[in-house]
């Protein structure tokens, strides 16, 4: 599983970080950092990452099966 991030659409609501702080973080500028950019999400983070992606209110995060 991969997660695609549309950085232009992200508005920094931060709900993904609440759900999966080891996977998504917002910096002090409110910009999103995604830990597994361009790679498969390791199995131990998959559930949290999926929850984080599902919580994005503006659909900037999508799960790519």
């Amino acid at each position, binding site marked *: 599983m991969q997660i695609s991030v549309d950085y232009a*659409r992200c*508005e920094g*609501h931060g*709900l993904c970080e*609440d759900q999966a702080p080891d996977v998504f973080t917002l910096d002090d*500028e*409110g910009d999103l950092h995604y830990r597994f950019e361009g790679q498969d999400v390791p199995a131990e983070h998959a559930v949290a990452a999926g929850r984080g992606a599902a919580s994005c*209110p*503006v659909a900037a995060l999508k799960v790519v099966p």
Partner: protein
Amino acid sequence: MTSTAAVPTYQADIYTDEALLEPYEHYRALRDLGPAVWLEAHGAFAVARYADARAVLANTEDFHSANGIALNEPANSAILGCTLASDGELHAHLRQVVAHRLTPRSLRPMRETVTARADELVAGLVERGSFDAVADLARALPLSIVPDFIGWPQEGREHLLRWAGANFDSFGPMNARAERALPQCGEMAGFGAEIVRTGNVLPGSLGASVLESRDRGDITTEQTMMLMLDYLAPSLDTTISAVGSAIWLFGRFPEQWDLVRRDPGLIPNAVNEVVRYESPIRAFGRLAVHDTEIDGVPVPAGSRVLVVYAAANRDERKFPDPDVFDVTRADAVQQLGFGYGEHGCAGQALARMETESLLAALARSVTRFELGEPERALNNLIRALGSLPVTVHTGA
């Protein structure tokens, strides 16, 4: 447009007083009938299941907001070209003008003010003991925050709640509520236009930055008028609904209030659960611009599609025991009460901040909400209490 035999249909008018008071059995019936159900009374497809509602909101290729938001033409024409009722690049451009001021990061400097106002408001009400949770609590905080934030001049503020309510009524079918509302929407638009003409907004406000965008040539004068109202109209009733419903729910389910008091870290999730359980906005429409289908149900081009957030949020296919109010619900954050995707509520960070601040202030002192007889404020779009007498208890 007529429905085909393969399409499930529903006869009842879901905008009568009775249906607005008790909507949830209608929503269950719609969910059980199918992924998209033709509403005979309203000439639109209802999408009431969670997965389909979310899919329609995400599919901006087939389902447009321009000419699609309301269930009647006059309202769709009146709002055409505002952020809510535009698509694609135009929408992205308009949203960008304002949304960057509404992100959690941009709102950080507001948190202190919002928290202080919420604390002060709650302290006064707790001292009084008995008050109206809608007039004195739910309305008081947004009205003390939002008009200043948007930069609305002092004069005209007395009309804001009436105008905002009319705005939402106008989005329903053209029933008596919508007919009464349209002239008032005109008043509001006229006031917005006047503000843009005179530049009479508070310095440093969101409204002032919209005017600067106009002066830089980023947006037209007409778009500026739209944007002045775009974020004001939806920012009051929605939050007021959520706060009123929160008190009503915590009064009825005191064990849930105990959980929040024991662990205030639950408050953000509790706000999601309130919005899931009593969605402030019941539904927004879309216009199908191509022949398409919703989970197998054929939807011809030109069809109106009503995405029923409030029904999706009670879908047992998504949320186990959906009619149980549970502040610890694991996936409450996935509720659709703020919409989803490109048009997802741009003001949700402010709405969350206001509601969370009030609940946090209450959780520090109030042990029980003793409810009087609530009265609903009926609106085509907003589910809200009009008044809720409450006595708060602070002892153990």
